């Protein structure tokens, strides 16, 4: 193990070769293009859904309990629900509003429960702040797209109201509105009023965790495949004299990682472009002014921690993938050889999906320091906004330590594994061989 001093430039040459051979392969090019197209298409899905759902109207009755509502309140609400371009026509946008005076509340509730309407929006004024307070009674999911759209619309109305009352500052004007979503049954209690924020943070962390999960599985397998391929084609024998196992390991992980990042970059680029053009396309297809889901909550610390955890997670897992890949002689056997690792990745992934809903639970906090799970759970915690800098640092230190151990172990297994041929080499056999090989 004298490889540290001489890790470069050979590891660099190997990684360049790995990258080129990977990136120039037909499967890589086709896969990248296909995934980028898919990702782009996925960003346009809301447009398609709106197009399909365009025919079915959502009927909302609005009961005005507030005094002094701006006279243009119906227009404001209608426009923010259905878009400016379709002024007057609620058919295309899909929201039909009927305004009722305050006295008709009980009748309206009867209508709602009778199914004549999909939702009942109650507009009231908080006597203390004189701000508008909205209540939506509906069986539509509280975190659904429609409820969100209505939420956005009433926010516009609230702003309109505040502006109308003037004298308030800009900051006050832009402050979030209080609004509650209640079930149709009158005994239901209000859910928290910061649904939007919570929702976007859990959606976001789910998305980021999926990104890491996919990267580790896909690109880790690439590393294992590339090791098995080299061993299967016996080019390994030439490599063994030209390099050290450590150089090969490092080169493979870096080269395949770079190829993976390239593919990822292409896909994320397609998503970004998709989000940017979503609005214009939406307008062109539907004539609405839907601005699409805002990528809110994507803060600099979150993006930075994502990148750190992504890199460290990939390093840790791909070293192990390389070690397992060295145990098989044929590429066909890679899948079964790496299945234990796959299980580990899956466990981490599923745990994180649960954890996103409860980032402050003790088990999540504890497991977020376990290097194999840190990429998911620590990320979920960061996205949830419940992490101190030192906590994040501690997880990173643990991961770095785990990577050092994995590097040592993987180099050992690798140097022994690459010389053993046969149907399937057992781990015990390898560890035995590892003790006496360089």
């Amino acid at each position, binding site marked *: 193990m004298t490889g540290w001093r001489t890790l470069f*430039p*050979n590891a660099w*040459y*190997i990684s360049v*070769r790995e990258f080129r*051979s990977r990136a120039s*392969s037909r499967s890589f090019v086709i896969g990248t293009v296909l995934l980028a197209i898919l990702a782009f298409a996925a960003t346009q899905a809301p447009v398609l859904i709106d197009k399909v759902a365009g025919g079915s109207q959502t009927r909302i009755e609005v009961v005005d309990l507030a005094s002094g509502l701006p006279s243009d309140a119906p227009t404001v609400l209608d426009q923010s629900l259905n878009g400016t371009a379709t002024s007057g026509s609620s058919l295309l946008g899909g929201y039909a509003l009927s305004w009722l005076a305050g006295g008709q509340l009980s009748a309206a509730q009867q209508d709602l429960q009778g199914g004549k309407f999909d939702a009942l929006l109650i507009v009231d004024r908080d006597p203390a702040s004189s701000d508008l307070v909205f209540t939506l009674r509906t069986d539509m999911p509280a975190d659904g797209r429609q409820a969100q759209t209505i939420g956005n619309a009433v926010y516009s109305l609230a702003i309109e109201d505040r502006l109308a009352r003037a004298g308030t500052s800009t900051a006050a004007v832009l402050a979030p509105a209080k609004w509650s979503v209640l079930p149709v049954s009158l005994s239901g209690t209000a859910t928290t009023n910061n649904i939007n924020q919570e929702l976007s943070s859990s959606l976001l962390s789910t998305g980021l965790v999926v990104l890491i999960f996919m990267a580790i599985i896909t690109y880790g397998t690439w590393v294992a495949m590339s090791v098995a391929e080299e061993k*299967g*084609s*016996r*080019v*390994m*024998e*030439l*490599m*063994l*004299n*030209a*390099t*050290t196992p450590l150089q090969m390991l490092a080169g493979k992980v870096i080269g395949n990682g770079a190829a993976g990042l390239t593919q990822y970059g292409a896909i994320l680029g397609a998503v970004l472009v998709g989000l940017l053009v979503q609005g214009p396309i939406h307008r062109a297809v539907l004539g609405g002014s839907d601005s699409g889901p805002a990528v809110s909550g994507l803060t600099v610390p979150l993006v930075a921690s994502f990148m750190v955890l992504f890199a460290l997670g990939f390093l840790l897992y791909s070293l192990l993938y390389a070690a397992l890949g060295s145990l098989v*002689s044929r590429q066909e056997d890679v899948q079964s050889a790496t299945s234990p690792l796959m299980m580990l990745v899956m466990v981490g992934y599923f745990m994180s999906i649960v954890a996103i809903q409860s980032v402050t639970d003790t088990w999540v906090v504890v497991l977020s320091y376990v290097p194999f799970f840190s990429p998911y759970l620590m990320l979920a915690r960061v996205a949830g906004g419940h992490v101190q800098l030192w906590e994040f640092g501690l997880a990173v230190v643990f991961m770095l330590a785990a990577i050092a151990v994995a590097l040592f172990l993987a180099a050992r297994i690798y140097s022994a594994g690459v*010389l053993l*041929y046969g149907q399937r080499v057992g781990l015990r*056999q390898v560890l*035995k*061989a590892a003790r*006496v*090989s*360089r």
Partner: protein
Amino acid sequence: MSLVIDSVSKNFGEVQALYDVSLEIKPGEVFGFLGANGAGKTTAMRIVLDILRPDSGTVAWNGRLNTEVSRDTWGYLPEERGLYAKMKVIDQLTFFGKLHGVKPKKAEQETRDWLERFRIPEYADKRAEQLSKGNQQKIQFIAAILHDPQVLLMDEPFTGLDPVNVALLKEAFLEMKDRGKTLIFSTHQMEAVQELCQSIAILDRGRVVVGGTVRDVRRSSGRQMVRIAVDGDPEIAWLATIDGVRVSRRGQDYTEAEVASGHDPELVLQEALGRRCRILHFEITDPSLEEIFIEHVGQIDTSERTLAPKAVYA
């Protein structure tokens, strides 16, 4: 100043691959490892290259342990040959050159020179998978020597080559020898050994059964061979009646007889003259390496005891 293998032993689980092997190979020498499948030739080479570590014993080159000398000291043509199937020959060879610290420009120039010498310059821009096995083998040979190693180890370099390519490879060997390189190769082909090697070691089940210069090894048994042909008597039946003489082969051109240790092969000539035979051919020689090999190892056995992988080409 030589390659010294000192009491090297190596086990793979139950299998004892090498048992207390000691050898000294002089610089500039062509050295042959002879042995049946699984005799330990490949393991011995891998240990010299520090790809494998021995259970006990050491290997030193010019007084320095092989774990301390630069990897670029060695050139290795493994028995199981492979190349990156999708990579162009020239890219592939420059890659291996770079790994050994050869500047890309120089590696490319050297590669083109060697391709020229092997009469395949047009293959530089082909992918490895487009080449025949014989030509792939030449590429691998170039990969092994591109960095101008001091010691060249080749595992069964002649297998799978047609006679023309064997001749080309032998030519390349001799050129490396002229450049002062030390050449070590393993083979089954006794003729090639007799033709190329100064020294050999015969390995049997992990042990060196006999070693030294080819001449010493051939004389080691003390036996001598007599080749005789007489006019009008193809059988030469009287040969077998001489004490210590055993007919080993009856050929078209001559009959070959083995004269046991301690007996004078001149007796055969005297007997022939005594019988007033007209002698067409008489030759006293040492046993061939093949005979020595069979004497020590038994029939060249083809049963599998090998740890080496089956050949698969990319």
